[in-house]
């Protein structure tokens, strides 16, 4: 258990550090054990430093920065443990246009090996999607599928 666990942790650590600096175009981030001597029992803490900023506790990060860190962590897990498909429901709600663009560029790369189903209101995200499904509420309060074209969202 220990060897396997340690090996996986190192792999996750490497992914997270790399993907973070791709999404933030710099800066650094890593995972550390709260108690380095007691690896098997202790907790894991996340440390993230956006480019040009000091190292501060992640609670001080902004809404959009927190979303980007969590997205980096998600992609790091998927790389270790690919999933037949992945559902992402409005993770882009807090992102500004610049960060959305970075997120979907990386998503496109990961989508070469994983299938993604994403729910979004953001136009920029729709531009990288291969298929589009519309849902709407009928008059009698029942959900139904409707066909949508990307141009409807212009």
């Amino acid at each position: 258990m220990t060897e396997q666990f340690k090996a996986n942790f190192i792999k996750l650590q490497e992914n997270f550090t790399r993907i973070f600096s791709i999404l933030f175009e710099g800066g650094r981030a890593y995972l550390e054990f709260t108690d380095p001597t007691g690896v098997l029992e202790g907790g894991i803490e996340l440390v993230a430093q956006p480019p040009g900023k000091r190292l501060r506790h992640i609670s001080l990060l902004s809404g959009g920065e927190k979303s980007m860190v969590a997205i980096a962590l998600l992609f790091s897990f998927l790389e270790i443990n690919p999933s037949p498909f992945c559902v992402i429901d409005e993770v882009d709600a807090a992102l500004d246009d610049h960060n959305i663009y970075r997120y979907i560029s990386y998503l496109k790369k990961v989508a070469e090996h994983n299938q993604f189903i994403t729910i979004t209101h953001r136009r920029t995200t729709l531009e990288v999607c291969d298929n589009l499904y519309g849902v709407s509420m009928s008059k009698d309060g029942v959900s139904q599928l409707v066909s949508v074209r990307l141009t409807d969202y212009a």
Partner: protein
Amino acid sequence: MYLKKLRLSGFKSFADPVSLEFSEGISAIVGPNGSGKSNITDAIKWVLGEQSIKSLRGKKMEDVIFSGTEKKQASGYAEVVLILDNKDGSLENYPQEIAISRKLFRSGESDYAINKKSCKLKEIHSIFMDTGLGKNGYSLISQGSIENILASSPTELRNIFEEAV
């Protein structure tokens, strides 16, 4: 292996049977607020064995069954069928198409099945044993939960990590 089709019937706001066909790559689901998009995410979590009704935004398990509107009767049961394409054989000993289903009647009777044969939840979990789906929170991200991941305590983060790898 990828998600080929999802069929919902009587699940939350999907009173009438609805079927979504997916292909590989990135699919987007769009629509106005309250139209039923996140109910699709809940349907996928549920058919894969989600036990916590709170994480499906309800109070009691029955809340997943269409409870009626001013113009339509409530449903007697909720059913979700998830069909995986296994043509690439990534799951040995399983056919080219795997249909996982879950059904719940108002009476509380519930039933899981793989390719129409009734089974236990354990068997559904074992299909995804070596993949990232289901057991870890990382492949099914519900609305609002991306921020919660960062708010977890070091011990919680460790648990998420242990399940994920």
